């Protein structure tokens, strides 16, 4: 079984374009048994499912022969053995601690956000990431500072993973001038030029073309501007609801057409506010949409940071080598409602309990302790440290000043002459009283 599959992997490094045969009726039959209408989408499969471009032989689920890029055979075997542990360790102790710390930071930060919101310190729309940390940590911790991350409104943890200090994110949420966007962006619009986090977009699907543009720039810099070492990749995060949006498909097309260095990461948490993914989508298997456009599609368990990390390495490596885009569907779950204003009445408590049992943070903790990568005490030290970081960020945000009145008119234009010419014939922005009264503008 493995040997025949192994034969097809010999050409893994030079990935041929996928053949034109797409999912066939046999394929549908294979998967239809795994999602009866009423039960959770695709169940809690622990085996990574990769794009099957030719009809698989019946009865072989996770080891179906594949043609284009898939998770390398060795990894599949490792991961297939049991849910969250394997005999060959996938991470070193240092890596494990980094991953753990990042996920705990994400979790604690979001929990603190909820507290602050209910105390009135944070306002507007706040969308929390609890439960999905494995996806953010799994991908972003493999990136360099120069690589780009584009997110949606559920962007606090992406910002933290990418390196934006917790203080700046918390201040931004409080609307203080020390925030990463000086309080002008807010929860849904986190930008950091230094860390190459370019949003933070409220409209779903809006970030995908922008991310594709960032990837385009990377390629342009290499090929037109002749910066030969520019191998920056872009990771675009978005949800299951976005995968029904036109811009998603437009960008899959163009990214594959122009072989852009981008990874499209679907954080499929099965719910778009109150709309179940199964009710909204004709074919709920999003990873299949990748091969339809000529790129590999992966489906992985997004509650397991190690699995995410392995596939992320694959996809990022592909992009860096110039082999083009990848679509990765991470099946994950958000423990809280869509936003803090969402009463979250439509989701089945049994479903929530099932996913809560697969909490990515506790899973990694268990993995590390069982495999002797760290002791409970060491991990507790990290927990405590993170608590202090988060509390410090709240204190910092509390003590920071609100934006000055003059900040209202700043940064509308990079060139403020864009405000035009005043009655005295000079540019408005040159008037020293420009920012004092808004009526003149």
């Amino acid at each position, binding site marked *: 079984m493995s040997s025949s599959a192994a034969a097809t992997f010999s050409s893994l490094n030079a990935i041929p374009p996928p053949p034109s045969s797409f999912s066939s009726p046999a394929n549908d039959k294979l998967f239809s048994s795994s999602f009866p209408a009423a039960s959770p989408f695709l169940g809690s499969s622990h085996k990574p499912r990769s794009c099957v471009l030719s009809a698989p032989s019946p009865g072989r689920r996770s080891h179906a022969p594949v043609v284009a890029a898939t998770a390398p055979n060795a990894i599949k075997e490792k991961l297939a053995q049991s849910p969250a542990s394997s005999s060959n360790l996938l991470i070193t102790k240092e890596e494990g601690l980094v991953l753990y710390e990042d996920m705990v930071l994400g979790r604690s930060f979001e929990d603190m956000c909820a507290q602050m919101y209910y105390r009135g310190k944070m306002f507007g729309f706040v969308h929390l990431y609890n439960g999905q940390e494995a996806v953010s940590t799994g991908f972003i911790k493999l990136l360099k500072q120069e690589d780009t991350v584009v997110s949606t409104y559920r962007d606090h943890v992406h910002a933290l993973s990418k390196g934006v200090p917790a203080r700046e994110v918390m201040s931004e949420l409080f609307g203080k001038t020390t925030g990463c966007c000086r309080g002008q*962006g807010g929860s849904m619009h986190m930008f950091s030029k230094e860390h190459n986090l370019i949003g933070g977009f409220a409209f779903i699907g809006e970030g995908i073309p922008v991310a594709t543009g960032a990837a385009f720039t990377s390629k342009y810099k290499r090929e037109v501007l002749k910066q030969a070492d520019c191998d920056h990749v872009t990771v675009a995060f978005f949800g299951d609801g976005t995968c029904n949006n036109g811009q998603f498909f437009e960008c899959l097309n163009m990214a594959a057409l122009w072989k852009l260095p981008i990874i499209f990461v679907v954080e499929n948490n099965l719910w778009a506010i109150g709309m179940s993914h199964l009710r909204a989508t004709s074919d709920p298997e999003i990873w299949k949409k990748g091969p339809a456009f000529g790129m590999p599609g992966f489906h992985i368990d997004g509650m397991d940071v190690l699995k995410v990390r392995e596939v992320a390495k694959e996809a990022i490596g592909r992009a860096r080598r110039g082999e083009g885009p990848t679509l990765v569907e991470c099946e994950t779950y958000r423990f809280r409602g869509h936003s803090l204003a969402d009463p979250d009445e439509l989701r089945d408590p049994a479903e929530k309990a099932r996913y809560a049992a697969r909490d990515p943070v506790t899973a990694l903790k268990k993995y590390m302790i069982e495999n002797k990568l760290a002791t409970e005490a060491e991990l507790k030290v990290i927990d405590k440290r993170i608590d202090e970081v988060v509390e410090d960020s709240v204190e910092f945000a509390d003590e920071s000043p609100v934006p000055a009145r003059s900040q209202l008119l700043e940064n509308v234009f990079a*060139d403020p002459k864009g405000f035009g010419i005043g009655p005295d014939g000079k540019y408005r922005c040159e008037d020293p009283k420009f920012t004092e009264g808004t009526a003149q503008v």
Partner: protein
Amino acid sequence: MLGIVRRKVCAKGLPVTVPGETLRFFRPVVHALRNYSSAAKELTVREALNSALDEEMSADPKVFLMGEEVGEYQGAYKISKGLLDKYGPDRVLDTPITEAGFTGIGVGAAYYGLKPVVEFMTFNFSMQAIDHIINSAAKSNYMSAGQINVPIVFRGPNGAAAGVGAQHSQCYAAWYASCPGLKVLSPYSSEDARGLLKAAIRDPDPVVFLENELLYGESFPVSAEALDSSFCLPIGKAKIEREGKDVTITAFSKMVGHALKAADILAKDGISAEVINLRSIRPLDRATINASVRKTNRLVTVEEGFPQHGVGAEICTSVVEESFGYLDAPVERIAGADVPMPYAANLERMAVPQVEDIVRAAKRACYRSVPLAAAA
């Protein structure tokens, strides 16, 4: 070369400038040592745009053009003729028909310092991409507090053409000009087209550049300095095309031509009209408009788009707010008819302002203060 020096404006504060110095950057370059013959060369608007694109692309390798049919087809209206051969497919990109997608890609590239020129086949199609123009381009510098500016240009034909029906004839000047964070330009003559497009491409902010299909083939004389490759016009400054003292007529794009013809007709009736070519819809040159109205005491605004919430509405309000005491007659507003553009040629003619409409409005503005009895 007295080139255009781009000043990096500090994002966290306002620039301190020496009065008068800043305007020098944008005045057309005058080479005192060279002699140019004053016999003007004629250039069509199409050639003007093409040469502007060509020169900007050659000066800065970060400038690239993308849109439908801009490459092999040489441009849907031949504006980008020859550019593919000169710069190759890496810099002149034929896109699939996905406005939202490729506009977003342009914005993402602009976030990272490239300078895309995104062409819409007509601005009607920009509605499919308007989320990116407004939300990810116009608002980004503000939302990121100055970290990320977007040096992108969106250009294409705007407004009514001839017999193309309702979905291809809308004027988007008012829509885009109401959005902070955008600059909206609308040239009339070839000199306008060249200077404003060059300024737009060099500008660090998103610029919506509204051309007019019917003007592409029109020829205008251009001065020698306009042909210089560093020629640039200031954004936010209107041009007084024709001086006058009785009534101010403001217009942009094709309507400037109509206004000038109307001014000729009015001159025969003893009314000296001052015609202002707005050039820049956002920022609007309120200073020039108000100064002109304070001189003539009467205002007629002309535009092709729908009347409600249009450019004329903004100009009239600006004048009423700032120069009310100077007005001798109510402000007159001429716009397209408040209907989707009909197809039949005679109806279309009625739906777009004609020269006679401008003449009539100007006369109304001039005689309004005379009681009817005395006129009889």
